């Protein structure tokens, strides 16, 4: 065939004409766009609003900057967040005084808000004040890092802010990395504040005043949200902009539909597919499945330690010895997770990390013996509850618990409760025996113990009261000596292992399914996708 100048010209024109009209005619190409489908909704753009969904937290991390951010590290082949390294995000750096009471924060001098105005120390002071004073979910979280009053934040100069602490709190900096500690364009927010609403909380539910990596382009509550990249963003670890120029977040309630979308290549990422679909998808290898144990979470079976007969440690130990751990792990999770049972240590744990595998094993003879020692050789009857929302994993657990405890004479009646009712009963401490899961944002051993095993509050699942734990966890929080801190943590884990207020089962996997071209997915402590880490290869 003769190729003439005319043929080439014609061909080129044709190619240009075709490529000028991409399939759906928008400025970014499909390759530069990430379409993320989720079963849940984003219900607010201000994460500190009570009732904010986890998806809202995830969004906020991409739209807002915080002063600091956790690093990330490799766990096997995958990336997970690393709470032990803290880097500046909107801050350029920080120094801590030798006594640990003063943190001097240096801001990035070139950082700007989405509207182009420069980030100043006034904005940061206002944002921190808001986080500790406005009626929202932020103050109780920040108080776990001894950040409680606006008096603690002082403007030094236009780009320096000083934070004063009453005691050297180990978690003060970490608390400035969480989704509640967003940094806000105070001039913009104040323009929308009212006398009743001095912190512009109403306005910020549907508007943003941020500086983060992405800008909200459109927001349809409960349906979809579109983000475009902020070309002036300065907060990344390596100084580069994120790879994706456009992010589409869409609510698709049906898990099967989400799976279809990913497999067909119409969507790029989903993190809440049905666990039963995953092995099949991994095998078919059309898509990429990233499975990481939720390193900051745990699933547990809990008794109310204030209700007889569970107030007797022997009864709790008997139950812990009777549970069929491995069967539950296989039936509920298809083995997709990290076991928190079956460890070989006795009395003293190998290190002070928590959660870590506990020395729990199925041993019916021991269980029967312990129950007899407690004076309940004939057994007793009780109820075992779980919430409907967790039934996919909790239903098999409940059936196996019922069967196993039946063998040592404990009659269990299974109760499946609607989520709202379950939460209320749990919060009111009216459930004698149940299963639930938990994740802590800040994976520090003393924080776990303070949050989950002390005080009369909602997250003390077992309503456990133990003076030793209370004393050690309160002191460990301000312990600056690393060796002493580690010894404290080990001691708490020892007491916990002996008293078994609740039985640790496992850390379920966080499963992210994505197009095979998407790379860099990181498991984050708030269990959502961080679009800033993702790229298309």
């Amino acid at each position, binding site marked *: 065939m003769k190729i003439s100048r005319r043929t080439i010209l014609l061909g080129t024109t044709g190619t240009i004409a075709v490529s000028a009209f991409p399939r759906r005619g928008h400025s970014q190409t499909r390759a530069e766009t990430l379409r993320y489908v989720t079963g849940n909704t984003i219900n607010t753009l201000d994460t500190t609003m009570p*009732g904010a969904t986890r998806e809202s937290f995830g969004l906020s991390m991409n739209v807002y900057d915080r002063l600091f951010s956790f690093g990330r590290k490799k766990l096997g082949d995958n990336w997970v967040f690393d709470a032990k390294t803290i880097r500046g995000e909107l801050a350029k750096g920080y120094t801590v005084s030798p006594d640990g009471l003063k943190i001097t924060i240096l801001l990035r001098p070139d950082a700007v808000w989405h509207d182009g105005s420069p980030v100043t120390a006034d904005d940061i002071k206002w944002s921190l004040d808001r986080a500790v004073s406005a009626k929202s*979910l932020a103050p*109780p979280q920040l108080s776990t890092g001894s950040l409680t009053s606006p008096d603690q934040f002082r403007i030094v100069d236009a780009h320096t802010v000083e934070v004063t602490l009453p005691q050297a709190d180990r978690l003060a900096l970490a608390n400035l990395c969480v989704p509640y500690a967003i940094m806000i364009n105070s001039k913009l927010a104040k323009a929308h504040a009212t006398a009743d609403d001095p912190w512009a909380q109403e306005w910020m539910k549907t508007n943003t005043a941020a500086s983060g990596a992405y800008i909200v382009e459109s927001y349809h509550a409960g349906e979809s949200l579109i983000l475009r990249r902020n070309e002036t963003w300065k907060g990344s670890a390596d100084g580069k902009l994120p790879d994706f120029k456009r992010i589409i977040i869409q609510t698709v309630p049906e898990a099967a*539909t989400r799976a*279809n979308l990913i497999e067909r290549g119409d969507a790029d990422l989903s993190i809440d597919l049905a666990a039963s679909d995953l092995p099949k998808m991994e095998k078919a290898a059309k898509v990429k499945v990233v499975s990481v144990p939720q390193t900051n979470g745990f699933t547990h079976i809990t008794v109310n330690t204030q209700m007889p007969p569970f107030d007797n440690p022997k009864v709790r130990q008997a139950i812990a010895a009777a549970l069929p751990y491995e069967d539950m792990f296989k039936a509920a999770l298809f083995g997709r997770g990290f076991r928190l049972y079956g460890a070989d240590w006795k009395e003293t744990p190998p290190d002070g990390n928590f959660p870590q595998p506990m020395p729990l094993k199925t041993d019916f003879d021991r269980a029967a013996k312990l129950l007899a020692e407690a004076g309940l050789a004939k057994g007793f009857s009780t109820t075992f509850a779980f919430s409907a929302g967790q039934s996919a994993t909790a239903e098999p657990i409940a059936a196996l618990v019922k069967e196993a405890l039946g063998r040592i004479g404990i009659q269990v009646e299974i109760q499946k409760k609607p989520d709202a009712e379950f939460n*209320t009963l749990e919060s009111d401490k009216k459930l004698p025996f149940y299963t639930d899961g938990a994740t802590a944002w800040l994976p520090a051993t003393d924080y776990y113990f303070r949050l989950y095993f002390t005080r009369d509050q*909602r997250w003390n699942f077992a309503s456990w009261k133990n003076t030793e734990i209370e004393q050690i966890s309160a002191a460990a929080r301000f312990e600056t000596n690393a060796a002493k801190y580690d010894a404290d943590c080990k001691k708490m884990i020892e007491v916990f292992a002996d008293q078994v207020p609740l039985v640790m089962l496992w850390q379920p996997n966080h499963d992210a399914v994505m197009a095979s071209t998407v790379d860099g997915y990181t498991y984050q402590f708030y269990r959502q996708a961080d679009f800033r880490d993702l790229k298309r290869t």
Partner: protein
Amino acid sequence: MLAAIAQRVARRLISSIPALLGVVVITFVLMRVLPGDPAVFFASGPSAGKQEIEDLRHKMGLDQPVPIQLAHYLVDIARGNLGNSLTTGQPVVQDMRRKLPASLELTFTALTIALLLSVPLGVLAALRPGSLIDHAVRMLCTLGVCVPTFVSGLLLIYMFYYVLGWAPDPTARIDIFASTPPDITGFYLIDFALVGDWNGWWAAASQLLLPAFTMALFVLAPLARMTRASMLAVLGSDFIRTARSLGLKQHRIIIAYALRNALLPVLTITGIVFSTMLGANVLVEKVFSWPGVASYALDALLASDYAPVQAFVLLMASIFVMVNVAIDILYGIIDPRVSIE
């Protein structure tokens, strides 16, 4: 004539107010009797303690006695304020304004499809009772009723989207990469037609087709069976025999004489079917990620979010009243002998 109809409509609407009020009060009380404290649910952040729950309860007015809460609520309704949704963070009125057209558009389309299929099928079955056609229609109807909508919906998605790739991806009202029409009526098909954007119209229509078919399948049975039964009764009556003996054309007898007279019960059923579809299409909305009122209300109910659920029930009751009034008027048009008083 028109004046008489207007008067009748007005009287009907006024007489329905006590019923609506009753519905409002009963829903209000029911929601509060249900176990589950919304404050606990919404303060379920990683660090929410007792104090936060109490504060939230106070902010939501849940610490007051129920009669006082009810009084506040009635005053709000009278002012056109249906409260705020905690699940979406928006005023309920605003949510409803966005979501009701989506549900209505889907329901109207599904009903149209269902009527276009079921009336001819019912007539065919009535013309040859006991024949192969009759049995085929019966089987189709039975299938439509037996297969739950989420199963037929997922099957249709699997077939037409996943395997064949004919349908667009079954998410929401329009392709996420395409632009939405200007917000005129909220009905995408009408809005696109109004601005003359026929590409957009087709995109919205193709997105609508699968969910509408899924719903239509489900309501085929009552409509087709009712058409068949009432056609059978009419076909056996004297005036049809007279018409036949006069040698009138077959299609004229069936359509002009028989069908028109057989339509009254079908119309009644259509009204009921429409109202149930609007409320009961939650499964279809969930499967097709359709942003409609029913799935909105279900999400709210699961989260103990009172305001949207109450508003939804009130809305459904109002629509039920309107549909009944509309059907009454249509009665008069189809059969001038009927005048509902």
